[in-house]
């Protein structure tokens, strides 16, 4: 099963919500749309579902053109960030509603709904109204309704964003299991890089209405095509700074320098942008090529198992993320180590050229 977007774009008035996009999403594994708020994830999903009209382009499902097919006839299902259920229906009727519309036999409806309720731990509350459920249960109900009809295309628009931390972790673990034996194209929109990495599958990074990169999640993470994709797929945000290459030596804007190795060694002399993920900047030397960087500490965040330190470096804010508790004073001149063997190098246009 596959969903193909061909030159799909969406324009409202003078605003371009989605720039022409080509994407082929396949069944098996999740397809993740990763991007910040307003990057166009929801719009793209609505276009995929047929809830919104395309400005240009076409959509194919299994090779068949469905651009002009009404959403009711497409066999899609969708789960939103808000917990959307029919308030006047019981949980049972909520889950059963797509089957009722499809005029399925009563026995079959009952069997399917009970099976779904079992799977999503809703068995005890089938008679209740959605308003009598907790947030997590409401979202499970919405999820059950999306899964019960065996849709060909399942769209999940930040389904975990409004849940509290514990429930989110729980549902996040369950999700891949729910889709494990289903033949359908699953699209999952999220703002959190961590979720993309957890689910694996394939990831498309979105930025201001453009898909900047699409591929297996691991590849997109390890080899961002350009600076924008790297920024989208990094939390805390990726550090970047100007770096100058002169012969064998690379010099950071802050003054730190090291000798170029690997792909960086092959770069011609000139000025580039260096990108380095926060967990490669640590208070202790680590990795294969640690380079000392100094900075003025602005903010420190300590959680139980890791330290996040924001500091000034060459006019930019850099972030260091490391295991363990490393107390730094705000305002202190700190010495940190950047493992430059993990660095990405981008040219003036933002394209990845080494790393």
């Amino acid at each position, binding site marked *: 099963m596959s969903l193909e977007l061909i030159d799909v774009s969406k324009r409202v008035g003078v605003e371009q919500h989605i720039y022409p996009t080509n994407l082929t999403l396949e069944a098996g594994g999740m397809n993740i749309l990763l991007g910040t708020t307003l990057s166009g994830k929801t719009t793209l999903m609505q276009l995929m579902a047929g*809830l919104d009209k395309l400005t240009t382009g076409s959509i194919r499902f299994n090779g068949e053109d469905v651009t002009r097919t009404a*959403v009711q006839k497409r066999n899609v299902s969708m789960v939103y960030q808000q917990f959307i259920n*029919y308030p006047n229906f019981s949980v049972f009727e909520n889950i059963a*509603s797509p089957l009722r*519309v499809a005029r399925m036999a009563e026995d079959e409806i009952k069997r399917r709904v009970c099976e779904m309720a079992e799977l999503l731990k809703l068995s005890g509350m089938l008679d209740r109204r959605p308003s009598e459920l907790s947030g997590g249960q409401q979202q499970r109900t919405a999820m059950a309704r999306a899964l019960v*009809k065996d849709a060909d295309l399942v769209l999940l628009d930040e389904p975990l964003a409004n849940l509290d931390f514990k429930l989110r972790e729980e549902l996040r673990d369950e999700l891949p299991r729910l889709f494990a034996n289903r033949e359908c194209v699953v699209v999952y929109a999220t703002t959190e890089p961590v979720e993309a990495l957890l689910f694996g599958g394939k990831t498309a990074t979105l930025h201001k209405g453009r898909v900047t990169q699409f591929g297996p999640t691991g590849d997109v993470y390890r080899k961002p095509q350009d600076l924008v994709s790297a920024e989208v797929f990094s939390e805390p945000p990726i550090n970047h700074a100007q770096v100058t290459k002169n012969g064998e030596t690379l010099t950071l804007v802050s003054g730190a320098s090291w000798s170029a190795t690997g792909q960086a060694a092959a770069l011609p002399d000139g000025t580039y942008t260096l990108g380095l993920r926060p967990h490669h900047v640590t208070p202790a030397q680590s990795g294969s090529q640690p380079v000392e960087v100094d900075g003025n500490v602005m903010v420190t965040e300590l959680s139980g198992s890791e330290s996040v330190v924001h500091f000034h470096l060459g006019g930019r804010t850099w972030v260091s993320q490391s295991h363990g508790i490393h107390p730094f004073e705000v305002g202190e001149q700190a010495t940190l180590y950047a493992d430059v063997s993990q660095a990405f190098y981008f040219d003036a246009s933002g394209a990845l050229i080494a790393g």
Partner: protein
Amino acid sequence: MKNPSRFVPALYIFFLMLPIYWLINMSFKTTNEILGSFSLWPREFTTENYVAIFTDPTWYMGYVNSLAYVSLNTVLSVSVALPAAYAFSRYRFLGDKHLFFWLLTNRMAPPAVFALPFFQLYSAVGLFDTYWAVALAHTLFNIPLAVWILEGFMSGVPKELDETAYVDGYSFPRFFVKIFIPTIAAGIGVAAFFCFMFSWVELLLAKTLTSVAAKPIAAVMTRTASTSGYELGLLAAAGTLTIIPGAFVIYFVRNYIARGFALGRV
């Protein structure tokens, strides 16, 4: 007394209820007692005023007529306002905000302005002195009001609910009737209540557009002058009965009205 501020609501309710009490008090007195003396409760308790109303068709038909055109108007206003409010809450179209505000300004126009054109128009098409005449005339200010109230309630329902229904396979009409209307039932209740009340208390158009067959109770009440002066007892009884339908309706929607206030639409 430890806390004098608790007298404030008590006083408020006292002054609020005083005229209503006096009306009910009068309705159980004879006209002679009302005119002849000052008494806090009926000295000669009589129900003959009520008996007079319920046995005389010119009286009780006034209530029947009023209830008929008010109900007709309520059903008409709400059913026309539902799709209009849906459009205002869900779609953006050219001039939508201006149109919405213009609708509301209709509510502000004095009914007297429309009395003459309506009279002439309805006479010409043979609607004069029918329930439809008054019901239609009252939609002039009740539809904008109902649209305004319903739009508030509808905008409180996320549009994702509509989308979820379409994704589930519901067609628009089926979604609207089976899911959307029950979801905003409270809003429909509030809108219906206000349509009912405004139509019930409106006198000028109702009086102008009817003569005999559809004469509203308020018009009947203005014609109690007889050779022996006004029959005040009878008038008080009629007034008391006029309050009842409104009180009855408000009892059913009291909880929803609070929600309407919270949405800033009542």
